[in-house]
């Protein structure tokens, strides 16, 4: 039966070509747009998690209230003990200490004066750990434009654009001026070991990355850190699981009146990420729903045109004694096959397009020269296994639904009037 219908589809291109093209285009658009949204929106979530929020973040309650101001004077103390206890209690997550800090970077000239100055936003991470977790997580090796990773104390990485703006080279010394945890003025001399470009304008223009031990010494933050970040071992964010960890952790400090007691916030509760994640999740579903509705209407119409064109054929088949149900079913089998062919073609094209955009991306750096938000300058799609069925199933479903609606006309044919209609 299938072989018979398949041959009919291949031989009578008028019957199949237009629906296959329509289905292919629809499926292609669904996959391409879903992949693009996955990539662009997901990339922003990933960037935010890796650089800022983690999958969960622990701060002191006082720090959390003003975290946008990076109030290191309110940072968590005794972080060594807290981190060890987290590692023991939640071994499925990796726990890291980070210090965010701001200040002024001054580049000395040969006379001891300044050849350039600029405000800097710093992140202190564990650069020298043997596992290299943080270096990998922040993709520092790939982001390195010039130079190398720091290998010794008081070496620093600096945003490539920042370095260019201040005419700094690898090996140059810079002076950092900022404020310690106790509010004292502090100065530190760092040597530039490398320049970085993350493709995130806000970071590339004013970022410095230093080792957390150096920064602890500089800012008088011994056994203190602004933030403890937790990441799941596969680096993917699972909100339900993280919510359980968050609940269990915060319950321990629920009755504490200490404003410096730790508090955990999961990714979804930081930086308005909750509504953003919901938006990302609902967008794909919205695409599929719109696609099915629009395609069904288009294919219903296509089916009706096909039905009209095959009006005589159905009449002859009915006149020869073929059952109406049989004709309807064969029409649905045919639609299913056409839907499958169109969906395969559309899925293939969509996946190829997604892989292309995943590899090459769309460079929007010219449009983001003055942007200050954390967004990538190269927009990339992202392939996920979900793309293999997100267009395919609705593609087949829409074709079948369209043909079912248009095929209902078969049941309205009267055998008594068939011969008159066929002008036999």
């Amino acid at each position, binding site marked *: 039966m299938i072989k018979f219908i398949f041959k009919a589809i291949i031989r009578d291109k008028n019957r199949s070509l237009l629906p296959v093209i329509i289905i292919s285009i629809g499926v292609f658009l669904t996959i391409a747009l879903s992949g693009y949204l996955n990539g662009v929106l997901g990339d922003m979530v990933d960037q935010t998690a890796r650089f800022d929020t983690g999958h969960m973040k622990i701060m002191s309650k006082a720090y959390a209230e003003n975290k946008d101001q990076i109030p290191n*004077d309110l940072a968590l103390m005794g972080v060594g003990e807290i981190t060890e206890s987290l590692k023991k209690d939640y071994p499925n997550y990796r726990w890291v200490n980070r210090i965010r800090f701001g200040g002024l970077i001054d580049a000395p000239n040969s006379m001891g004066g300044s050849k350039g100055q600029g405000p800097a936003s710093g992140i202190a991470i564990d650069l020298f750990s043997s596992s290299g977790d943080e270096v990998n997580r922040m993709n520092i090796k790939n982001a390195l434009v010039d130079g190398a990773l720091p290998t010794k104390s008081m070496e620093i990485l600096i945003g490539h654009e920042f370095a260019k703006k201040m005419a700094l080279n690898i090996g140059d010394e810079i002076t950092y001026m900022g404020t310690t945890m106790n509010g004292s003025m502090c100065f530190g*001399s760092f040597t530039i070991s490398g320049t970085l470009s993350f493709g995130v304008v806000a970071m590339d223009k004013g970022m410095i990355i230093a080792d957390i031990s150096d920064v602890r010494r500089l800012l008088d933050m011994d056994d203190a850190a602004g933030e403890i970040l937790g990441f799941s071992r596969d680096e993917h964010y699972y909100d339900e699981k993280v919510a359980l960890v968050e609940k269990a952790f915060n319950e321990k400090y629920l009755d504490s009146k200490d404003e410096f007691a730790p508090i955990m916030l999961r990714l979804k509760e930081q930086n308005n990420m909750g509504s953003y994640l919901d938006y990302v999740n609902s967008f794909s579903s919205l695409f599929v729903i719109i696609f099915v509705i629009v395609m069904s209407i288009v294919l219903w119409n296509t089916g009706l045109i096909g039905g009209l064109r095959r009006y005589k054929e159905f009449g002859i088949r009915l006149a020869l004694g073929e059952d109406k149900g049989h004709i309807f079913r064969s029409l649905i089998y045919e639609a299913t096959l056409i839907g499958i062919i169109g969906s395969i073609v559309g899925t293939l094209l969509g996946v190829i397009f997604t892989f292309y955009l995943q590899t090459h991306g769309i460079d929007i750096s010219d449009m983001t020269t003055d942007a200050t938000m954390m967004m990538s300058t190269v927009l990339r799609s992202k392939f996920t296994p979900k793309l293999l069925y997100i267009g395919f199933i609705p593609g087949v479903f829409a074709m079948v639904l369209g043909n079912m609606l248009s095929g209902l006309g078969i049941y309205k044919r009267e055998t008594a009037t068939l011969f008159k209609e066929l002008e036999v």
Partner: protein
Amino acid sequence: MKKIIIALILSFVASCLFAQDAIMIIKRVDDNMISKTQIVESQMLIYGRRKTRTVVSKSYTEGKDKSFTEYLSPAREKGTKMLKLKDRLWIYSPSTDRTIQLSGHMLRQSVMGSDLSYEDMMEDREMTDMYSAEVVGEEIIDGRKTWILELKAKVDDVAYYSRKIWVDTERYVPLKEELFAKSGQLLKRVSLTDITKVDGRWYPQKMNYKDVLKTGKGTDFIIIDIQFNTKIPTYIFNKASLRK
């Protein structure tokens, strides 16, 4: 009609007289607060949310353009020096042996984590040079009768666009100040206490600065010793003195 014109003229004359009075008052305040030179040893009590720090410094000021400050304690701050020449400010750090010039928005940053900004520290001009004034009322503060004056900037390069000051009617010393941004947002409150007579002028020995955008009790600026119109060697106001 005549009555209206007379009333208008009288109110105009009255407002001119009040303005004249206000200018006279802030001139008297300037006479108390500003001198040709000042050498001040002071301590800042910075009330943080975790702990209170005390920073001791010695400052030399000449006119409105020259100022030099050396921090004496605690150990973390000892040896840090600041030099102001006109509108430029340099900071010397002994730990890195570097002198860094601050400019732009950095001047609005807090000094040593206190409620004072570098701009606050740099402001040595007479108020009559920067503001127009108007008396808007009277109030009793700590048993002392004060005039309330509203000051509006008449030059562009001021740290605060407007101020409200409560001036002691007998001693011509401000007892309280509120400092505002151009938008009208209150930025800082200053209360001045322990008014004593030094070298024939009334001067507050303790000032509490409160940045209203920060939590906490603010910063106390307490004068340990103050000398007016003492000759200051010229080498003090030189960049070379930062590294000495």
